C-alpha cells in the first residue's frame, strides 16, 4: 500500500474515532436521542474493506452501527451528524436517526435496526446488479451475533446457488450486546459457517487496516469477477458499550486490555512513525485539525440546522402522485 494511501486512511480512521466520540458527548448533552451504537475500535473494518472496493459506487448496507460506513461511502459527515440531531438537513431528513442513516446518492443503502435484516436485502441488490449486467457489487457488513438469524443461512444459500455478486463482511467483535459469542454460537469461527454454502471464506485480523485491505481486495476481486459471493470475517473489538445504555459490565478487564493494546489507529500510526513517514507531532496536528473541523463545521451545522416541520410529518409515507393509485374510469393507461 502506498504511503499516501496509508496516511489518508489514518486520517479517515482518526476522523471516524473523533466523530463517534463527539456523538457520545452530544448524546450526553441530549442533542442526540434514541439508541446510539458507536464504532470506536472497529475502524479498520469499514475502512479496509471499502478502500478495496469502490465506495460510492458499490452498494453498501449494514445494521444500526452505521455512521462510519456511510461516511466512508462518501456521505457528508455534516448530514450524518445532522441526522443524529434529528434535523431536516440530516441525510434521512430527521426521519431516520442513528440506526437509519441512508444516502442513496452514495449508494449507502441504509442502516437497519433489526438484527439480520440486511442479509437478504444485500442478496437482492446483488440480484439486481446481476440482471443489469453492471460490474458493481453489494457489500453487507453485519456483526457476529447476527449470524444466528435464519436470514443469514437463507441468504448465503441463495447467494451461492445463484452466484450473486455479494460480499458478506462479518465484523466479529465477540459479543452480541452482553452475550459472549461462545455462549450463543456453536461455531465460534464465523468463516467456517460459510462452508455450509460452499462459499469461499477467510478470517483475518480486523485491527490492522492493511491486513483487512489485502484480504478485502482478494474478496472484492473474486465477487466482481462474477464467480459468486464471498464471506470475510474480521476479528475486532468495540471499545465502548454496545449502545449508550450498556456499561460493558459483562466483559473481563484482561480481555479489554489485550484488545485495547491493538488499537487500529495506533497500529497504523506507529507503523508510519517507525518508517519515518510521519512524526507524532504530525499526528497531533492532524488530530487538532480534525477536532476543529468537527466542532466548527459539523457540530455547528447540525446545531444551526432547522428542525423538520411537524406539518410535514406525513410526508414520505407514500409515493407522490402515483398514477396507478387512481386509474382513469376505463382502466386505460394513466
Amino acid at each position, binding site marked *: 500500500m502506498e504511503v499516501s494511501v496509508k496516511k489518508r486512511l489514518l486520517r479517515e480512521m482518526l476522523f471516524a474515532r473523533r466523530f463517534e466520540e463527539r456523538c457520545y458527548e452530544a448524546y450526553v448533552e441530549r442533542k442526540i*436521542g*434514541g*439508541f446510539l451504537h458507536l464504532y470506536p475500535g472497529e475502524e479498520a473494518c469499514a475502512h479496509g474493506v471499502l478502500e478495496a472496493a469502490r465506495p460510492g459506487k458499490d452498494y453498501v448496507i449494514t445494521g444500526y452501527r452505521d455512521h462510519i460506513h456511510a461516511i466512508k461511502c462518501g456521505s457528508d459527515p455534516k448530514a450524518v451528524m445532522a*441526522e443524529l440531531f*434529528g*434535523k431536516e438537513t440530516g441525510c*434521512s431528513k*430527521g*426521519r*431516520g*436517526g*442513528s*440506526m*437509519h442513516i441512508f444516502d442513496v446518492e452514495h449508494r449507502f443503502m441504509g442502516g*437497519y*435496526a*433489526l*438484527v*439480520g435484516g440486511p442479509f437478504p436485502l444485500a442478496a437482492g441488490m446483488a440480484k439486481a446488479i446481476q440482471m443489469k449486467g453492471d460490474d458493481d457489487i453489494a457489500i453487507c457488513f453485519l456483526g457476529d*451475533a*447476527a449470524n*444466528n*438469524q*435464519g436470514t443469514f443461512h437463507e441468504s448465503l444459500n441463495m447467494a451461492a446457488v445463484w452466484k450473486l455478486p455479494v460480499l458478506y463482511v462479518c465484523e466479529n467483535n465477540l459479543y*452480541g*450486546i*452482553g*452475550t459472549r459469542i461462545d*455462549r*450463543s*454460537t456453536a461455531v465460534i469461527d464465523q468463516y467456517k459457517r460459510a462452508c455450509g454454502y460452499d462459499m469461499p471464506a477467510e478470517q483475518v485480523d480486523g485491527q490492522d487496516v492493511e491486513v483487512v485491505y489485502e484480504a478485502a481486495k482478494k474478496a472484492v476481486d473474486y465477487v466482481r469477477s462474477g464467480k459468486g459471493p464471498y464471506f470475510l470475517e474480521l476479528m475486532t473489538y468495540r471499545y465502548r458499550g454496545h449502545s449508550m445504555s450498556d456499561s460493558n459490565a*459483562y466483559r473481563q478487564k484482561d480481555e479489554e486490555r489485550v484488545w485495547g493494546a491493538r488499537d487500529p489507529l495506533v497500529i497504523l500510526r506507529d507503523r508510519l512513525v517507525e518508517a519515518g513517514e510521519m512524526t507524532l507531532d504530525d499526528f497531533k496536528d492532524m488530530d487538532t485539525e480534525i477536532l476543529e473541523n468537527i466542532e466548527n463545521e459539523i457540530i455547528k451545522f447540525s446545531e444551526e440546522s432547522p*428542525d*423538520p416541520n*411537524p406539518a410535514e*410529518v*406525513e410526508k414520505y*409515507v407514500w409515493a407522490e402522485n402515483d398514477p396507478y393509485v387512481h386509474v382513469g374510469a376505463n382502466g386505460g393507461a394513466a
Partner: protein
Amino acid sequence: MSQIMFWEALRRAQDEEMERDPMVICMGEDIGVAGGTYKATNGLYDKYGPERVMDTPISENGFTGLAIGASFLGVRPVVEIMSVNFAWLAMDQIFNSAAKVRYMSGGQLEAPVVIRSPGGTAHQLGAQHSARMEKVFMGIAGLRVVTPSNPRQAYGLLKSAIRCNDPVFINEHELMYNMKGDVPDDEYFMSLEGSEVARDGRDVTLFGYNISVHWALAAAEVLSKQHAIEAEVIDLYSLAPLDRAGIAASVRKTHRAVIIEEAEAPVGVGSEVMAIINEECFFELDAAPVRLSALNIPIPYAHVLEKAVMPKTDDIVKAVLKMHGRG
C-alpha cells in the same frame, strides 16, 4: 400491600412460578447473565441456573418455536422478546404453531407458552423500534392477548398466563417498566378475560389499554376540574378477547364513547371496540363514538415529529367537549 415497580412485579411473578413449578422456564436475549433489558428476570439466573433461565441466540423465530415445542411436552416457557419489533420475526411460530395446534390436533396438543414483549413508542427510537403490535396479535384466533397498565396487573396477569393452558401474549410498554404502583403482598391471580373500571363516571366513557389508560385518566381529570364532565375510564387489559359485556355496560351508563389507542387507527383496538358498541348497544348512544389514534405513518426519529404522532390530552378533552355539544 407494597409499592413496587412494574419490572419488579414481573420479576416477582416469574420467581414465584419458577419456585413452585420446576417446569417453568424463562428464555430470551440477554435475560440471564445480564438480567434482562428491563430487569424482568433480574437475579433469576443466579437462583435457577442456565437450564431454566436461558440466554438465547438472536434467533427469534427459532427460540420462540423451541419454546412452543417444549410446551407441547409440559414445559411452561416464559419467552421474553426484547422488543415487539423483533416479534415480527417470530410470527410464523406464534401464529402457525402456538395459536393453532390445539384446534388442528382436535384437542390432542396444547401450547401453554407465555410470550412477553414491550411495544410502544418510547423516546426517539425510530421507525423500526417503535411498533405497536397489539392489533396484529389480537386478530389471531387461538392466542390470548393481555396488556397490563400497572404493576398490580403486570403481576396478576403474568401469574395467570403462566398457569393458563392457552398461549398468552403479554403486551408490555417500553416506558412503563419503572412505573410504581400498589401490589398486594399475598399471591393473587387476575382473570385473563375482562376489563377494569379505572375511574368511575357517568358522562362519557374513555376506553384505553396499557399506556393509553394513563392518557385517558389525565384527560378525565381535566374534564372534571375544568368542564364538570365526569368521564368513566375503562381499562381494556384483555385485548383478545375484548370484554364485550364490560364495554356495553359502560356505554349503557354514559351513552358516549371515546377510544384512545397508541397504535394507528386501521384494523385496531378502536375499530373493534366501535364494532362491539354497534353490535351490543347502538341505540344507547347519544353521540357517534370517536377514536383517537396515532397518525398512520412509520414513527419518525426527530423529536418534534415524533411528538406530532400521538393523541394528546387536549385532543381527548376536545373530542369529549364536542360530543357534549360544547366543542
